[in-house]
């Protein structure tokens, strides 16, 4: 178990430092969670600092020492060696020996990501948002790591494909039947639909996957999640392809390019992504799309750029492209090698992205420059105003399809006060169960989940909201992403 860091709390509005009055534990003591470890004193008050976990304690500040907000005070853990290692990393001096403080943005992001600020090491005296983000990334697993596909397949079936002469002798239709019965695992060279060809060492397609006619897939490993759709006439030439649930591609996308089938050649796509018509994904040095990423038509992602002689002063450029959750690359954009597009970023049409894009920013141009940012988080009052306005637009748009009063917004969920409504939009968690029991479909706008037995009217609502970028879980098969 990794040691737990007990850090100095925010003391008060005006106090940024405190003095360690006394330790109630000695190094190496066993402590229980909640046990008082030490006392701190500021100009106005004293604080007791409690153990946030049980284990062996290792104090990091001497009695009498001055400490600042967020400064690590003690480590608690079960493994002495791990405690010592951690102490060595924590007590490495920052420049000026001044404990780092964090900006408001860094603090907010660390809370959002569940990162302890005390663990973020910076060269300077102040922890910035980018430091927290970099630290979070350093802890992320390799974005291009692929769990072995074979582990997900039935071993007995794999053996049968490889070794069983009886299996090989089966007529094609029987083989397909076997594939289906063994979990929709389809072996090398099997046709899925007229004109579609998939070539791969291991392929795993789950329920309700559609592959459009004329599509050709050629891969060493290929996995595609539930309810995903590959459009017609696409070409996927990539060593490793892993596509999440509810992926939707329009027709004529091309995956491949230079260095295909190199070890770095992989395309990893998360859930609920959209790749529009005629996109080109040069996967040779790795492309990863997070969840709910959309690429508009004609977007080109290049992971290589080379032609002219580097000995003659030109540059060659290779590198993976990572597009984080919720980012939106709009029509005709070109993304160059090594670029990371942050979560929620928007790339306006016709841009050339030649450098990393900060999360939740809007960029445009060649080279793309930041022209705006998304103010987050959106306060609840503003969300409510937007939800009410959406409801008005929905009534207009769906007049004749959805009866008057069938869809309502409720600030507080009171099932008894709903009249003839069948669908409720709300941010309120309390009372949802009652509402569902009354036969209502509840769209919870606070965590984007839909509850209750869905009906044609709720389908219309869901589709209307989807076209405003509001997607609900569980995902509806009809609407894919």
């Amino acid at each position, binding site marked *: 178990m990794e040691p737990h860091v007990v850090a100095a709390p925010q003391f008060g509005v005006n106090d940024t430092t405190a003095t360690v009055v006394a330790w109630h534990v000695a190094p190496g003591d066993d402590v229980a969670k909640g046990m008082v470890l030490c006392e701190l004193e500021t100009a106005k008050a004293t604080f007791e600092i409690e153990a946030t976990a049980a284990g062996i304690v290792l104090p990091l500040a001497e009695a009498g020492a001055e400490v600042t907000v967020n400064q690590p005070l003690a480590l608690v853990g079960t493994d002495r060696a791990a405690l010592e290692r951690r102490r060595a990393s924590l007590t490495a001096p920052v420049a*000026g020996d001044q404990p780092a403080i964090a900006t408001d943005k860094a603090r907010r992001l660390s809370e959002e990501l569940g990162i302890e600020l005390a663990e973020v090491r910076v060269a300077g005296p102040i922890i910035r948002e980018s430091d927290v983000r970099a630290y979070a990334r350093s802890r992320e697993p390799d974005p291009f790591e692929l769990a072995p596909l074979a582990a997900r397949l039935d071993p007995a079936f794999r053996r049968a494909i490889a070794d069983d002469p009886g299996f090989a002798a089966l007529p094609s239709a029987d083989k397909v039947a076997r594939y289906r019965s063994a979990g929709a695992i389809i072996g090398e060279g099997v046709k899925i639909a007229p004109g579609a060809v998939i070539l791969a060492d291991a392929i795993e397609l789950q329920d309700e996957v559609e592959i459009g006619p004329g599509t050709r897939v050629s891969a060493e490993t290929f996995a595609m999640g539930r309810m995903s759709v590959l459009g017609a006439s696409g070409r996927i030439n990539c060593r490793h392809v892993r596509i999440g649930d509810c992926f939707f591609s329009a027709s004529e996308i091309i995956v491949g390019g230079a260095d295909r089938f190199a070890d770095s050649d992989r395309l990893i796509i998360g859930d609920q992504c959209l790749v529009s018509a005629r996109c080109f994904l040069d996967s040779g040095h790795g492309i990863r799309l997070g969840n709910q990423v959309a690429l508009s038509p004609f977007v080109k992602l290049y992971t290589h750029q080379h032609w002219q002689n580097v000995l003659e002063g030109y540059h060659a450029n290779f590198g993976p492209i990572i597009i984080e959750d919720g980012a939106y690359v709009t029509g005709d954009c070109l993304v160059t090698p090594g670029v990371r597009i942050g979560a929620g970023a928007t790339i306006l049409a016709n841009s050339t992205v030649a450098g990393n894009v900060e999360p939740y920013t809007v960029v445009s141009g060649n080279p793309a420059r930041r022209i705006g940012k998304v103010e987050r988080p959106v306060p609840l009052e503003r969300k409510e105003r937007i939800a009410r306005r959406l409801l008005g637009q929905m009534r207009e748009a769906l007049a004749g399809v959805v009866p008057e009063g069938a869809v309502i917004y409720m600030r507080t969920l009171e099932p008894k006060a709903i009249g003839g409504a069948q669908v409720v939009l709300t941010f309120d968690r309390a009372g949802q169960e009652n509402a569902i029991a009354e036969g209502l479909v509840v769209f919870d706008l606070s965590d984007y989940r839909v509850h209750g037995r869905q009906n044609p009217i709720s389908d219309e609502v869901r589709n209307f909201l989807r076209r405003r970028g509001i997607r609900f879980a569980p995902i509806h098969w009809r609407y894919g992403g």
Partner: protein
Amino acid sequence: MTAPAGKSPMRYVQSLNQALHRLLAERPEVLLIGEDLLDPYGGAFKVAKGLSSAFPERVLTTPISEAGLTGVATGMAMRGFRPIVEIMFGDFLMLCADQIVNHATKFSYMYSEQLGVPLTIRTPMGGYRGYGPTHSQTLEAMFLGVPRLTIVAPSQYHDPGAQLFDCVTRARDPVLFVENKLLYPQSLITPDDQGRVGHFTLAAIGTAAPAHPTLSLTLAPGADPDVTLVAYGGMAGLAVEAAYQAFMQDEVVVEVLLASMVSPVPSADLLPSVQRSRRLLVLEEGVCEGGWGAEVACQLATAGGPRGGMAIARVGAKRLPIPSARSLEQKVLPATGDVMAAIAQLTREG
């Protein structure tokens, strides 16, 4: 949260007082002339404390006669002395403006450089103390562009005593040495051996005048600043506080440039930062209109400012007499909120 404070036992007023003691002790040609300078009073702001006891013949107290005493000091300067004039309140400089503009700064030129006028005029400026319309002003901008007049105004991040010593001992033409009233009781702030002042990194830029450096304070050393905030003297604290808040709240990197040479404008010290930030904010306590900020902005824009131009904002006093009531005075003089609003305006997207 407050802007960081360094640790130094020396106060601004002490630094000046010690420099004056040293000047009178080491330089027989130095004299101090002004009103109410004698002990035990020691001057309205106690900068002259102890001097008349230690050097009774060389500390001259005069009646209320700013023009006269400046004229006398000018004559002495022409004859080999290095007099220091103390004008009790900067507002009263108007009384000796004729002596400064038409006489002291002209004689070297008019007499073909056969003589110098090494005259240092010290005076406190500034408000925020409820002293009302005629004892709270910041008027040095009125003396901008007077040929051969140098205006120096150190902040608490500078070494006011050393700068005063340099003015008095090295000047050939008159120097107006401006001391902000609010600074007198403040401790001088010096960086640690790594150039740190709290979380700020401080560096001296002495391209324009090594004895009167511009100080750069930034929370993100090495990074291109988003905004270059230029200020001097009594505005240093406000500037640093605003830079701190802008960074901690919004991660806007504000490089604070604290000039200590007010005139001529130390453009060479200021230009590199503005070329990187492309956003200039000038903060001064005097009235914005016709002020120092206008001169700084114009000089930087015309002296090779950033290609593609730069955004400019100014924060200063409103064009109103300074009220005595504290609550009203606060509305006329610059405040942190004004600086923050200007930073926000400069960095607004689009």
